[in-house]
């Protein structure tokens, strides 16, 4: 059996995980303190994913930029394609938390949404 050691990124605790692999299949997970750790370990050795966060320029708003994120996690290999898709994106104020900034980013099927409220300049 192959064993892989990981550090969980599910929360700042950073649990040290041990994943047992048999024929590329996850046979066991240990070291986690919660269910998230188990799920993270299984995903990380088969299909690692990340939430991507960034910011884009706002026009006509009370602030220069609005922070954004992928609504869900996306495959780790797609991080830079997402960043490329966000290059040059500009939005008009007002923007509110949860507003879709870019739909189906880089063909991942995941939307980029705003994570901050930026009101229009009065």
């Amino acid at each position: 059996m192959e064993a892989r050691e990981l550090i969980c990124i599910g929360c700042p605790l950073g649990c040290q995980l041990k994943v047992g692999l048999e024929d590329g299949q996850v046979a066991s997970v240990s070291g986690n303190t919660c269910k998230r750790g188990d799920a993270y370990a299984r995903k990380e050795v088969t299909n690692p994913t990340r939430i991507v966060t960034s910011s884009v320029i706002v026009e006509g708003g009370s602030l220069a930029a609005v922070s954004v994120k992928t609504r869900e996690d996306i495959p780790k290999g797609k991080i830079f394609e997402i960043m490329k898709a966000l290059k040059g994106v500009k939005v008009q104020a007002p923007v509110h938390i949860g507003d879709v900034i870019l739909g189906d980013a880089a063909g991942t099927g995941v939307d980029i949404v705003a994570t901050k409220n930026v009101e229009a300049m009065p």
Partner: protein
Amino acid sequence: MLNYDIVVIGGGPAGLAAAVSAKRNGAESILVLERDKELGGILNQCIHNGFGLHTFQEELTGPEYAGRFIGQLQEEQIAYKLNTMVMDIGANKVVTAMNREEGMFEIQAKAIILAMGCRERSRGALNIPGYRPAGIYSAGTAQRLVNMEGYMPGREVVILGSGDIGLIMARRMTLEGAKVKVVAELLPYSGGLKRNIVQCLDDFGIPLKLSHTVVDIDGKERVEGITIAQVGPDRRPIPGTEEHYACDTLLLSCGLIPENELSRSLGVEMSPVTSGPLVNECLETNVEGVFACGNVLHVHDLVDFVSEEAASAGRHAAEYILNGARHLASGGRDIPIQAVEGARYTVPRTINPERMDEKHTVRFRVGDVYKNCYVSVYLNNERIIHRKRPVVAPGEMEEVVLKKEQLAGFPDLSQITVKIEEA
């Protein structure tokens, strides 16, 4: 002169949670003073995710986490002033503040909550030799420029210090197209969270060089290169280990310092370890009716713990307003908590077994990395907590929970001791 029962200094995560909690615990007249143009403090520039798992059971970005608390503040109809700088707090609890609309003005408070947060250790404080060209930023300044103002500080980057902001910025600059060449850390371990090493450095193949520091900065107008060298156990550079990196930017992530100028001039007693006020279990300082919470009290690793601590400060401030000095009337004695052998400090510094809640969480940090150790608590000479920990590190806050009934079992309690014991 304006009059408020509670004035909260600072509208970041600590100030917001303290104000909301004070209101929900019965205080009516509360004012929050914030020097930036919006509420939320440092969370506004922390656009990465990972906040709120404890508080909201979901993973939020910094602005979303701040947004929840700003929403609560508005629901509770708590007054606040933006772009307002507090200049002084008098011993009679008169707060002197200023802003562009009202000029200089005074507020008479009955209770004050200190929630001013912290600031980054600067190049000057680090004594790095070399020229003083453009291109040297604290990691937090770079974070604000990239995330909020839409500027890139540089293209080729060296980072000194592996605190969380430095790690987060290594990833952020990389995502924005910069090349982060190396993160150098003076200590033999990282000061940041493990998860940030994984997802900010390892994910992008950025090398972390432990026991290394910057020994020279080249470039007269703009940074042109950085020389780093390995350090020995005495943390002094080892001659012959120098490596040169061509780069245009140096980011510094070398620790945070609580911002306590106002506290000091008010006569608040300070801890030389945390650079924050010494507080009892109500989070009250030695100045009656003056409370402290968040990073101004001690630098936290998680905002969730800031919110929790601030809510406690807010509740106690409300009780102080409603019941007068309950603490003075309640009897009992303040028992000192001593942090020794690996434990650097505790918050609170004292606990009153009569006055305390049923359970009280004592937070502390350790001075070194310890593996397979025990976190132990002694009441006088009797050990009451002996909890095994696979690893503890200075970058992560530790906690122990003290129970009122346990303390009540020691009528002649004179000292509580928190320490790390090796197996």
